[in-house]
């Protein structure tokens, strides 16, 4: 794994819609590189027969029945949004085409 550079940090920040100063980016690049190196340590071991761990809990098949429950009252819903209109959340105009 190569070093994590400024470009990687910038790209990740852009995808996450975050903005950082140059100094912060430098700091994160260093920290990211350390994290990746730390995780890379695992490649020192032979993990051919070990399935990847995707969940910290052992639980399987947590499933519910398909019966309708109560939804949120509209006045409560409208309070959750910075701006509501006509039972809907108002967002800046989205041009799809």
């Amino acid at each position, binding site marked *: 794994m190569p070093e994590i550079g400024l470009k990687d940090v910038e790209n990740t920040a852009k995808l996450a819609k975050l903005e950082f100063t140059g100094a912060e980016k430098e700091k994160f690049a260093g920290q990211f590189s350390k994290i990746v190196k730390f995780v890379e340590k695992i490649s020192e071991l032979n993990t051919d027969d070990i399935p990847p761990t995707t969940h910290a809990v052992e639980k399987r098949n947590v499933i519910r029945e398909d019966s309708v429950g109560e939804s*949120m009252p*509209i006045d409560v819903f409208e309070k959750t949004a910075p701006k509501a209109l006509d039972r809907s959340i108002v967002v800046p105009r989205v041009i799809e085409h």
Partner: protein
Amino acid sequence: MEYEAVIGLEVHVQLNTATKIFCSCSTEFGAAPNSHVCEICMGQPGVLPVLNREALDKAVKAGLSLNCGISDYSKFDRKNYFYPDLPKGYQISQFDYPICGKGYLDIDLSDGSTKRVGITRAHLEEDAGKLVHTEGAGYSLVDLNRAGVPLLEIVSEPDMRSSEEAFHYLKSLRNIMKYIGVSDVNLEEGSLRCDANISIRPKGDDKLGTKVEVKNMNSFNGVRKAIDHEIERQIFAAENGERIVQETRLYDAAANKTHPMRSKEEANDYRYFPEPDLPPVCVTPEEIDNIRKTLPELPREKMRRFEKDYNITRQDAITLTDDFDLAAYFEECLKGYKGEPKKAANWIQAEVMAVLNELSMGITEYAAKMMPATQIAELLNFVEDGTITGKMAKDVYAAMVDTKKTAKQVIDEKGLKQVSDSGELEKVVDKVINDNPGEVEKYRSGKKNVIGFFVGQIMKETRGQANPKMVNDILTKKLDQA
């Protein structure tokens, strides 16, 4: 240069569960904005999504109907992107362990040939909300009723080579989903959505060309036209030395064109990672078997059985099995009908379908409110036993549709009976022969086709009630005499 198109389809099927995939909000269509939302489908912090059993079972059922392997270990992942209709900033989907693995679908093409289209995978995911744009307004409105409705995304292999094949694949997929009852599969309402990956390559090449994804095809004809248009566009570009870029294009049905979609951020960098709130799902072989037992006869099996058992044409069998309820109506009719199934098939396809079109009614409603299949059987039996002619049956049927009376009632009331009394028929035949000496002369001088004229006259005299076969026999006998 001759080109070949390579097409793969990604089809989203909305599963018809009562509640959303990870919360107990209703999935009802057409409700007032945001009446079916809660903390979970709105993506509030600290909530816990829990998988809906019905969505899982229906996904397995759909997978089995498409000959897919069902995964004994499946998990959910977060697909990250920002869009105002996606409240959490990620969509819960399945990345590397989808519920359904490889499968295939055999489709019948118009020329009578069969083609096998591979299924790459099918995975469960949640739908996004809906954005409403008001003309001229500087804002958009978000309705989250649809956010969290379960979807099964069925991905095909790039096995199709023409819009015709893609059309038949989609149609056949829709019919199967409808037959097995996992979705309403309505393209216009959005419970079935289709995106196409299209590329071209010189015919004979193995290497795949640059693919373009086409979205926004909202009807079966739209799918066909959009694909044709995109293939043409790519061939034109290639022949003029232009480079085809990998992109997503939207189909504009009104203009029959595709145009590039403004890219959503850094396209395809979705940074999938396992959804920590949803533990993996392990479906056991017993559970799979139990679901397999609930699978009905699939459209293609039914089509083949109809063709073979009822001795009807392939095209008739396809038309009748295209709709599960229409096929059921036909078979219900056959239970009471004593004649050849072919005749009932013709009647339903011509007369019944014409009425359905005229009234814009589905077969289920028609059977329930207008005419049960048993009544068609009764009507056709009257033709079969010679009570009425086929021509009279059409009038009787029209009266049945208008008055909701049974065939027997209409026949009795109108005094409609086929005249099969040979004495009576002979009288009419004699009269017509005597009234038309000129035509008799023509016949006897070898113009045998004037027989049609005589039949017409006799039918007129009997108001269409004469038994046509007997008329023919008596007439030929009399004309050939002397």
